[in-house]
């Protein structure tokens, strides 16, 4: 056991941090700065990080889920308003199915409540759902159930619009006809594949939440250091100090469970990986809401304004929370995995 990041992993984190520091929006107004988003997009494309889960020899991914999570965390911290989660999840699906790489940027199609991939019963059934993280994306992957497993299909995506998460616009897909992917040599995905993909997805959302929390606390810490009331920096008041200290502690705990969930996604059997991911997601999602709420509270009235970045972090956290299940859904996974459910609903 040695769960330190390797030198290469640390270098990757630093590179991702640099990209984010150079190109992420420094204010809410900058979200609309098309030149900046183009630079961020170009830098991210140039980095090749969207292909971390593309297949190398024997179909293994170029990089592990740990490295992928490192990039996801830094992009969350930014917050980086370029698509990463969606394309990475799509690439992971293609890799598992042995499909050819996508020719254009692609994401995944989730059920309207974002709880999982859209699955249709046959290729004649039209697909509806949400193409998450759809900025600059042309299509989204869904599943068709067959007698022997699940086949990948694509649906066209258009018109991503900023929704609850202003950094990662999504697109509604309504009644799109699924299209078989081109190319041969593809295999059907098993239920275990889906489970493993879900574990990977949850781990990445945790990493994004950890980054989001870091970004929110950085923002609040800075504000608390400069904002003065009653003749002193508000960060010198014990109540503000304790709110931020608790937030920092939550980040540290979240970081530890996320590191394990990312490791588990590539290493443990799918059921165990999913259980590890559920523990991490329940923990991180609970923490993220509290931490982002704290960041707003520390900002006082400013924190309630559209122009303050604090709600941008909160909104991003809410989206990442919802992807493949929020606190309640993942706590239910923990209950199921530890076999402590099945209680009656009323009084004891």
């Amino acid at each position, binding site marked *: 056991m040695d769960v330190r990041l390797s030198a290469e992993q640390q270098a990757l984190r630093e590179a991702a941090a640099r990209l984010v520091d150079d190109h992420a929006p420094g204010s809410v107004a900058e979200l609309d700065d098309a030149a900046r988003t183009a630079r961020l997009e170009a830098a991210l494309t140039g980095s090749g990080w969207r292909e971390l889960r593309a297949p190398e020899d024997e179909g293994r991914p170029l990089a592990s889920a740990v490295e992928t999570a490192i990039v996801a965390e830094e992009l969350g911290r930014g917050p980086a308003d370029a698509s990463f989660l969606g394309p990475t999840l799509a690439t992971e699906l293609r890799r598992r199915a042995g499909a050819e790489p996508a020719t254009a940027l692609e994401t995944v199609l989730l059920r309207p*409540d974002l709880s999982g991939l859209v699955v249709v019963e046959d290729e004649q059934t039209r697909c509806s759902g949400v193409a998450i993280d759809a900025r600059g994306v042309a299509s989204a992957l869904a599943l068709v159930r067959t007698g022997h497993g699940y086949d990948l299909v694509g649906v066209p995506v258009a018109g991503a619009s900023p929704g609850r*998460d202003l950094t990662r616009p999504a697109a509604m897909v309504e009644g799109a006809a699924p299209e078989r992917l081109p190319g041969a040599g593809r295999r059907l995905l098993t239920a275990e594949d889906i489970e493993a993909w879900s574990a990977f997805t949850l781990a990445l959302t945790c990493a994004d939440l950890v980054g989001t929390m870091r970004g929110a606390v950085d923002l609040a810490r800075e504000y608390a250091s400069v904002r003065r009331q009653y003749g002193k920096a508000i960060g010198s008041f014990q109540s503000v100090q304790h709110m931020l200290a608790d937030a920092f502690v939550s980040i540290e705990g979240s970081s530890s469970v996320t590191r394990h969930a990312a490791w588990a996604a590539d290493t443990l059997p799918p059921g165990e990986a999913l259980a590890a991911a559920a523990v991490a997601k329940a923990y991180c999602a609970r923490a993220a809401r509290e931490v982002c709420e704290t960041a*707003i509270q520390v900002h*006082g009235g400013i924190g309630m304004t*559209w122009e303050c970045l604090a709600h941008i972090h909160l909104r991003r956290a809410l989206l990442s929370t919802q992807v493949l299940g929020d606190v309640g859904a993942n706590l*239910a996974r923990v209950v199921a995995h530890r076999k402590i459910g099945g209680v009656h609903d009323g009084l004891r």
Partner: protein
Amino acid sequence: MDFADSPEEAAFRARLRAWLAENNPKLPQSSTADEYWDGQAPWHRALYDAGFFGLSWPEEIGGHGLPSVYEAIVDEELAQAGAPPRPSLGYLVQGMMRHGGQDVRRRFLPGLVSGRERWCQGFSEPDAGSDLASLRTRAVPRGDEYVITGHKVWTSYSDEADWCLVLARTDPDVPKHRGLSAFAVRMDQPGIEQRPLKMINGVTREFGEVIFDGAVAKASDMVGSPGEGWRLAMTVVSHEREPGELGYVARYSKAVNELVDRLRSAPGRFTEENVRDVAWAVVEAEMLRLHVCRRLSDRLDGISHGPEGSVDKLLMTRVEQAVGHAALGMSNLTGGIEEDTWLKMYLYSRAQSIMGGTSQIQRNLVATRILGLPVA
């Protein structure tokens, strides 16, 4: 000790209920849509004209001189009908009644109460939030008027207002709490620029920023004496902490009813966490309803109030944020990625621990003024 209606109260309740059945404008929650603010002024006037607003205020200002507990009945019936809450103006009314002279009260309060004149509140500034007394807006005497210069934020309904109750520094040479005075300032004059303050839930019409650059107030429109501004402000903000004054029981109970309906409409869609959050919202909102009954009953001997407004503000904040968390759980479960009413309700709920004095400030007040703990 009786929570039940007296015969007179029951008759009033029946009258109100019948009126609401015909006159519910069915506005969205104020925390979720700018459209609410289009409907708010007509609703205020309709409620007033039907005799259901200002029940416990004196008749000379347009009120009904009824016992304070009638306000609780109004809140319950509004919530039950799914109608908008009563307009949250009580804190301005209380501040002007207590500190304004006879002339000020007679000139301004009837229009404020009836909704014929719209008022906004200009207290906070960018650098004076929790530390309100450090505000920098100046009012400089010039003949029989004052010239006002400064920058106000969180000015409620400033886009619609005819008047603004402005807190400004009239004497820079005394300790900061003593040099403030309050003015009724007309909004339709040169030297005032109003711009909307967009909140994190996208609502742009609840609050504004107002820049005073040589705006003018008549000396006779000063509310209270010179230097009485801080005491007036404290009266206003302490009533602003009272859910009974704000009519927020109706707001929360209505929201809870909507949450309950939402859960019932789709059994099986929600997790145990969602149900639990709604159950706590039910409990919290019911607590506040009963707590306000207690506070309004305590007023039957007349208003006397002190730091317990901070207690009520903290209770109200717990309720709003419990409702907000339950609403967040209802959000985006059918409709995709867009913002929905539930999400906006949640986002707005985060403001309750900030506006009207942060929860940190309220706790300071409870600790030192009520519990008698030593000031640091």
